[in-house]
């Protein structure tokens, strides 16, 4: 057998020189190689490949072995000789051929093989690309795109433990990709230093690297847990990857202020990542987060931009992040929001900012989080940011924001919270040194009218609107008790009295109606309960009754809970009524003693 093979090899050697290798030869070579691999005779194969006399054969037919070799290495990682064969082939065979084969190797991988394949193939791809010289730019692009595509299919670790375990290999891949990028980034830097203006090829290389960086920011970095507080020693491969990306961007002449603050069109070949697509926005949002919250490469970022301008720009990214439902996005959005607000002076944001779309949608997203997000941690954070935002608004902006929130809100709790803020603002504005025409004087009336009203009139469900009504009553009581200051701002008082009168009148009607209704419900429940007591015992609490409140079905609750809710409602109405009475008392007191005018 060995002798036969030797004859064949000799024939090949001659054929190569004459360029006479036939398809049969290719097939034969492949089979022979495959046999070696399967039998574990890879040393023999390696010797053959490395033999100078066989150089021609290897150059012409070597590529055919690659698929099998790669498969072998993936099966048995300790197959060093196979790896050596691949390495040699990568240095010897035609670069174009190699590229095509390698790209095929990283396409459409089985999920379990993604990490291993990428870690294996990246260095070899790099070798081949570096051999391509001036032609490399588009191929680098293809390679980066192919690699990134597979990496984006890997699940992103959620906790520190998961990251350390790296069960799916994402961290390993990111490290491999960082190493893969290095020589190309260096090349771009070198070219920049040595000549003025790059060639088209250099520019394309930059563009491909930029595409890759932006793509990586989006997947996987945007989903990764990169909290500095948790990862104090910053050993995480994902952290290193993020740092590499952020260092690469300015190195390839894409300074961060340009990327983050100016959506300017680039002179170079535009990739779709430089447009306003959601994906591009997500990449930049991740960039903003890494820079401003995790402070990666902040020391190289110009310290000359005004904090309000930075907030304005970041608002767009916060908008993108908060419009998602995944916790990792929301968390990043909230942190970026907090960080950006903290840099701004209290009570300073101009009202014009509220005209920007992002300054409208971000608070709306926040309200969504506050009211329906199931994760308590996020709700708590959201709450803090919400108040922080209000605190940073200037007086006129606060006024406008409060009006906007009351008008657009559909949640009594949110409205109640805003009304509390209004009360606090009025209280503050009456103190010396904090006077603001927006919360004292005629400007406050439209705000009060908006707040102290019942949009649904007598049909208002007081239980539903409880939060809002209680805060409104608190506000009213406060305003009446502080009347002596109002007298300084003439013509407020009569208007205020009118608002108060109308409000309380309507409230009394609502109370009467609501109380009647709920009392009726309680009575019904008591009667039903007697009948159903036996059944409830038998069904062991599994019985659930549907209850209709004002033509809307209340969510299914046990009868006991329903009863409690109704009782609670009645108590609440008592509370409201007593507040109303108190307010009217104060009002009458003022008239009697003449302190009201």
């Amino acid at each position, binding site marked *: 057998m060995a002798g036969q093979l030797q004859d064949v090899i000799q024939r090949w050697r001659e054929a190569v020189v004459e360029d006479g290798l036939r398809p049969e030869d290719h097939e034969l070579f492949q089979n022979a190689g495959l046999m070696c691999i399967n039998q574990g005779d890879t040393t023999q194969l390696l010797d053959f490949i490395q033999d100078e006399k066989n150089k021609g054969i290897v150059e012409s037919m070597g590529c055919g072995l690659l698929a099998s070799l790669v498969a072998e290495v993936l099966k048995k990682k300790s197959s060093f000789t196979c790896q050596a064969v691949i390495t040699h082939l990568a240095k010897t065979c035609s670069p174009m051929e190699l590229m095509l084969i390698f790209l095929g190797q990283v396409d459409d991988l089985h999920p379990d093989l993604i990490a291993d394949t990428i870690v294996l193939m990246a260095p070899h791809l790099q070798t081949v690309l570096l051999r391509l010289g001036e032609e490399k730019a588009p191929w680098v692009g293809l390679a980066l795109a192919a690699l990134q595509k597979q990496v984006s299919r890997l699940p992103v670790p959620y906790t520190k433990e998961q990251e350390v375990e790296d069960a799916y290999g994402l961290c390993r891949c990111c490290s491999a990709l960082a190493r893969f990028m290095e020589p190309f980034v260096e090349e771009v830097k070198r070219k920049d230093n040595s000549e003025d203006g790059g060639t088209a090829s250099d520019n394309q290389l930059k563009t491909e690297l930029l595409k890759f960086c932006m793509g990586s920011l989006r997947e996987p970095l945007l989903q990764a847990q990169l909290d500095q507080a948790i990862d104090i020693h910053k050993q995480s491969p994902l952290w290193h990857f993020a740092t590499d990306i952020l260092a690469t961007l300015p190195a390839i*002449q894409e300074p961060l202020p340009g990327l983050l603050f100016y959506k300017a069109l680039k002179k170079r070949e535009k990739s779709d990542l430089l447009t306003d697509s959601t994906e591009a926005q997500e990449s930049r949002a991740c960039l903003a987060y890494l820079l401003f919250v995790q402070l990666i490469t902040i020391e190289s*970022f110009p*310290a*000359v*931009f005004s904090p309000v*301008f930075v907030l304005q720009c970041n608002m767009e990214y916060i908008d993108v992040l908060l419009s998602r439902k995944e916790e990792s996005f929301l968390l990043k959005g909230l942190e970026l929001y907090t960080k950006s607000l903290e840099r701004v002076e209290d009570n300073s944001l101009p009202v014009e900012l509220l005209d920007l779309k992002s300054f409208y949608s971000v608070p709306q997203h926040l309200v969504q989080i506050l009211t329906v997000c199931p994760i308590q941690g996020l709700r708590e954070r959201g709450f803090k940011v919400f108040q922080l935002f209000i605190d940073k608004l200037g007086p006129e902006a606060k006024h406008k924001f409060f009006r906007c929130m009351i008008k657009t809100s559909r949640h009594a709790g949110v409205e109640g919270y805003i009304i509390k803020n209004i009360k606090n603002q009025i209280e503050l504005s009456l103190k010396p040194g904090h006077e603001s025409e927006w919360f004292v004087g005629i400007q406050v009336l439209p705000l009060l009218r908006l707040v102290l009203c019942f949009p649904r009139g007598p049909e208002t469900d007081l239980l539903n609107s409880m939060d809002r009504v209680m805060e409104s009553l608190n506000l009213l009581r406060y305003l009446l008790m502080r009347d002596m200051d109002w007298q300084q701002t*003439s013509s407020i008082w*009569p*208007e205020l009295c009118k608002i108060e009168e109308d409000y309380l009148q309507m409230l009394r009607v609502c109370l009467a109606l609501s109380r009647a209704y709920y009392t009726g419900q309680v009575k019904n429940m008591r009667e039903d309960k007697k009948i159903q007591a036996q059944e409830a015992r038998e069904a062991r609490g599994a019985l659930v009754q549907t209850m209709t409140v004002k033509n809307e079905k209340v969510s299914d609750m046990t009868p006991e809970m329903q009863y409690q809710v109704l009782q609670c409602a009645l108590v609440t109405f008592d509370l409201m009524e007593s507040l109303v009475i108190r307010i009217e008392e104060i009002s009458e007191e003022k008239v009697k003693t003449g302190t009201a005018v």
Partner: protein
Amino acid sequence: MAAELTREWSDEQLKSDDLSKKDVIKFIQDNATHSFLAEHKLMGNIKNVAKTAKKEQLIIAYNDLFKSKRFLGSEPIEDVTEHVKNVKMEDKPKEVVEVVDEGPPKFFKSVLKKGDKTNFPKKGDNVSCWYTGSLEDGTVFDTNIPATARKKKQSKPLSFKVGLGRVIRGWDEGILTMSKGETAKLEIEPEWAYGKKGLPDSKIPPNAKLIFEVELVAVD
């Protein structure tokens, strides 16, 4: 408008119950100047005023009106328009954003190298500059000038639109006074830099005065 009105009711008539508070109020509202009404707290819905004002007070006001003769039309126009302006809040024209912060400029410029003295940037122009920023104690907290001259040739200066509030106020105001090619030292008070908060992430403490050496390379 009658310059002088005649008293319709005597003191006795005023005190009597036949004359309602509302009648008196109506009369006064119809005939007194705005400022008079404001001072005596007689503005607004008659019903409300009647609720809160006592008869004695109205009598006093009525007498006051005839004593002071502050009848409608006797007051200068400015008072009226002032009042109207206050009421029509919604129609207020949108004002320009500039934070009103009158007072001396909070930066000081010394020219280190003269510029061409012709190309001065205007608000909204794109400018490019090299800069080094340091604190009062000399610590350099930021610069965009690379270490070697060769690298500088290949780096790009910082570009931005001046005068639009995108950078700290000291820069916005300072650079507008520079001409192309000029190198200047800008000493900026904290109010026009990063104020009470500072920028701890970039090593700028609170209430820090900043010193920038800026070279204005290009004006768009």
